[in-house]
């Protein structure tokens, strides 16, 4: 049987415009290319602007993870300016970020991912009719509830920042708000509402406490069998149907994973620096290499970008984002032997291509590296090992697993606020270089900023999807999604739902992958030097 080439434009339901080319032989994908097809030039826009411009502009890079961009922008300036951040403010930033992610989980699962379980391909599955009742777009029982209730957690964001998306309430030195008892009480009530109306009865079919007892794959399977409510919950149902339709059989990827770590501890990061960041995070940073089963810490100095196959004329060497010059090719023709995407290929200097996202976070959470007081959770790593690596199904479980943990962290923030203590300590603006990072719902996000003569000299962003959706690098190594697509069975080339499953399992967000360049002149932009 000959090879067939399939150009899918767009893949859709991946937040932004993702195009994919796959080559199919014998009903299986044997080669794949991912293209980011939008360019807005945010980093160029930021050059020469007020040092705080990033607080306004970068949340608008992505309306889905705007709070995550805002937290990166704030911490980057905090490290550049040498601020002191009061503990209330650290908690308020964390809470904003947490509720943004809690919002994202049902919105992503029902709105973007689970709809495909109602695809006609699965008509013969015994789960199909039930899947349609639950997950059909707009009218499915769980779809409607899940998408609607996803608006609730970000009401808490609005209590702190006035609105979600696109508030700029986090600023160097703290936050703009000083919530009252009313705000805190409402926030508690909103969390409770979310838990009692969806998280426990619909999603888990059990209490948070019962779910928290699950530590291993065997625990999970025992939980599933324990009660019909567990089996019939959306989580239990999804798990069983996913196995039935084979979502555990493809979509592996590169087998190495990255997280910057997130949620700085309110007592350990009040005088933030780039160097002290790793030890101050509640959720630890790291790289997990599944081939050697080892965990190591992640540091920003390990990051590299390669533009060999991207629409930039910047040579073929791997460079640190600090040293990146941004030199676009005007004519962005798709050329699969050369350049075919606006995304750069992001790498680790030692580990090469890495997958970012919820799976990466959970695999790193299962490592014993980092500080003794940092969060540890071995569940997803155990599931990963049970399946002998990643697949769509494991990636999906990891994506939804964080909810209970984040819910608990949100509760903790609310308990820890001391309402009459400071929320902001006015910093002194100064020149310098800063770095801020976090984990957006869909993966590792970081900002580098250099302030010179009281304005932004250079601003660089590496978003989660830049890691995942990047094109091949100088050695021809595929990006994580490209790699994950290889081996995907395609039942009907006129409706390649399987490609959608794989791409969407990464929860890609193409709107974020945009890099900067000067369209008018094509001039080389200012360098961002490390030394």
């Amino acid at each position, binding site marked *: 049987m000959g090879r067939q080439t399939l150009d899918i434009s767009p893949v859709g339901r991946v937040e*932004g415009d993702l195009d994919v080319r796959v080559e199919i032989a014998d009903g299986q994908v044997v080669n794949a290319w991912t293209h980011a097809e939008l360019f807005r030039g945010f980093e160029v826009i930021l050059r020469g602007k007020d040092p705080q411009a990033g607080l306004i502009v970068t949340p608008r890079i992505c309306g889905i993870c705007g709070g995550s961009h805002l937290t990166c922008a704030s911490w980057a300036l905090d490290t550049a300016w040498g601020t002191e951040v009061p503990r209330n403010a650290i908690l308020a930033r964390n809470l904003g970020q947490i509720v943004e992610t809690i919002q994202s989980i049902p919105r992503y699962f029902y709105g973007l991912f689970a709809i495909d379980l109602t695809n006609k391909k699965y008509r013969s599955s015994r789960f199909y009719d039930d899947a349609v009742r639950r997950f059909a777009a707009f009218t499915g029982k769980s779809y409607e509830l899940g998408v609607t209730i996803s608006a609730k957690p970000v009401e808490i964001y609005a209590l702190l920042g006035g609105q979600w998306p696109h*508030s700029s309430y986090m600023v160097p030195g703290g936050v703009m708000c000083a919530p009252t008892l009313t705000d805190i009480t409402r926030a508690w009530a909103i969390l409770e509402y979310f838990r009692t109306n969806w998280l426990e009865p619909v999603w888990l079919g059990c209490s948070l406490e019962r779910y928290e007892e699950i530590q291993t794959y065997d625990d999970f399977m025992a939980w599933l069998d324990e009660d019909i409510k567990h089996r019939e919950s959306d989580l239990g149902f999804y798990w069983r149907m996913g196995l039935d339709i084979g979502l555990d059989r493809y979509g592996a990827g590169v087998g190495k994973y990255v997280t910057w770590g997130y949620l700085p501890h309110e007592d350990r990061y009040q005088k933030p620096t780039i160097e002290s960041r790793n030890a101050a995070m509640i959720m630890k940073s790291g790289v997990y290499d599944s081939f050697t089963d080892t965990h190591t810490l992640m540091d920003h100095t390990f990051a590299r970008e390669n533009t060999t196959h991207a629409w930039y004329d910047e040579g073929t060497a791997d460079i640190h984002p600090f040293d990146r010059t941004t030199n676009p090719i005007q004519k962005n023709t798709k050329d699969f032997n050369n350049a075919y995407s606006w995304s750069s290929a992001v790498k680790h200097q030692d580990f090469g291509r890495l997958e970012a996202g919820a799976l990466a976070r959970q695999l790193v959470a299962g490592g014993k590296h980092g500080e003794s007081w940092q969060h540890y959770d071995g569940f997803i790593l155990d599931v990963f090992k049970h399946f002998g690596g990643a697949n769509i199904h494991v990636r999906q479980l990891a994506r939804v697993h964080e909810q209970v943990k984040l819910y608990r962290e949100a509760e903790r923030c609310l308990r820890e606020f001391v309402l009459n203590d400071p929320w902001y300590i006015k910093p002194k603006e100064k020149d310098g270089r800063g770095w801020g990072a976090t984990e957006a719902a869909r993966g590792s996000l970081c900002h580098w900023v250099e302030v010179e003569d009281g304005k932004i000299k250079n601003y660089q962003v590496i978003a989660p999807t830049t890691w995942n959706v990047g094109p091949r690098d100088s050695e021809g190594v595929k990006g994580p999604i490209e790699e994950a697509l290889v081996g995907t069975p395609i039942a009907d080339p006129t409706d390649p739902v399987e490609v959608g499953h794989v791409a969407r399992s990464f929860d890609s967000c193409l709107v974020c992958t945009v890099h900067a360049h000067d369209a008018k002149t094509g001039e080389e932009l200012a360098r961002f030097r490390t030394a």
Partner: protein
Amino acid sequence: MTNVLWLQGGACSGNTMSFLNAEEPTVCDLIADFGINVLWHPSLGLELGDRLQTLLWDCILGKTPLDILVFEGSVVNAPNGTGEWNRFADRPMKAWLTDLAKAANFVVAVGDCATWGGIPAMEPNPSESEGLQFLKRKEGGFLGKDYRSKAGLPVINIPGCPAHPDWITQILVAIATGRIADIALDDLNRPQTFFNTFTQTGCTRNVHFAYKASTAEFGQRKGCLFYDLGCRGPMTHSSCNRILWNKVSSKTRAGMPCLGCTEPEFPFFDLKPGTVFKTQTVMGVPKELPPGVKKKDYALLTMVAKDAAPDWAEEDFFTV
């Protein structure tokens, strides 16, 4: 049934996220209760690849009636007017827009990028972005000053970064229920019902504004954000403090200065050094005063207000 096609150009998906926060009605209510049929949406639509391309062509060719075209994001013209830097469904997005705008009964621009060009169109505008019928305050934009949709209206502009979900749902429902004739548009084609009053209308810090009690630093429950922190609430047309955000608050209520994001000039002063979260003043008087207030009267007002201010105006007003 009212067919809605929603596309994104140079977008961040923020208006979509805002739209999904809608509660009365919810996005699902729109479909179940108001007869709105979402033909396709980038985050919610079912079709991918060729199937979507067919759907789009069916709209263009009139096989599928296109009642409302909703556009989110800027129109990307780069490089050199070709639009190739924003390709969608195998064509430049602007090519789809040209064709679809001819077929649509109504065109609705949601958010600043689609209305005025927004952040992508900010200096130096690397993507050569513009709004559907405006570039900043200048009329014209991508479709031109004279563009009218098949129903005879210009592009209905729902600005904001993002647009408030209620602003979006109410316009969609107004069209779907045959009420759009009730909606008056202002000179920037914004529905007056949302954009006639100022952001300040309903702000809980209004008494501080009246008595000239300023918040000079962030993290305060008291004081007005206009005098020192660059708040544009008195000069910005929006209903943010009347139709609250996420049902619970607004930026100024929470302590964040209004950025004026429903006005074409957003982001103001192009975020040049010294302009972010700082009020621009001349001899202590704000450079920009609320519309209709004369400088001389403002000085007089300040004196009287300061004299008349009760002690509590300077205290932590919303105390714990």
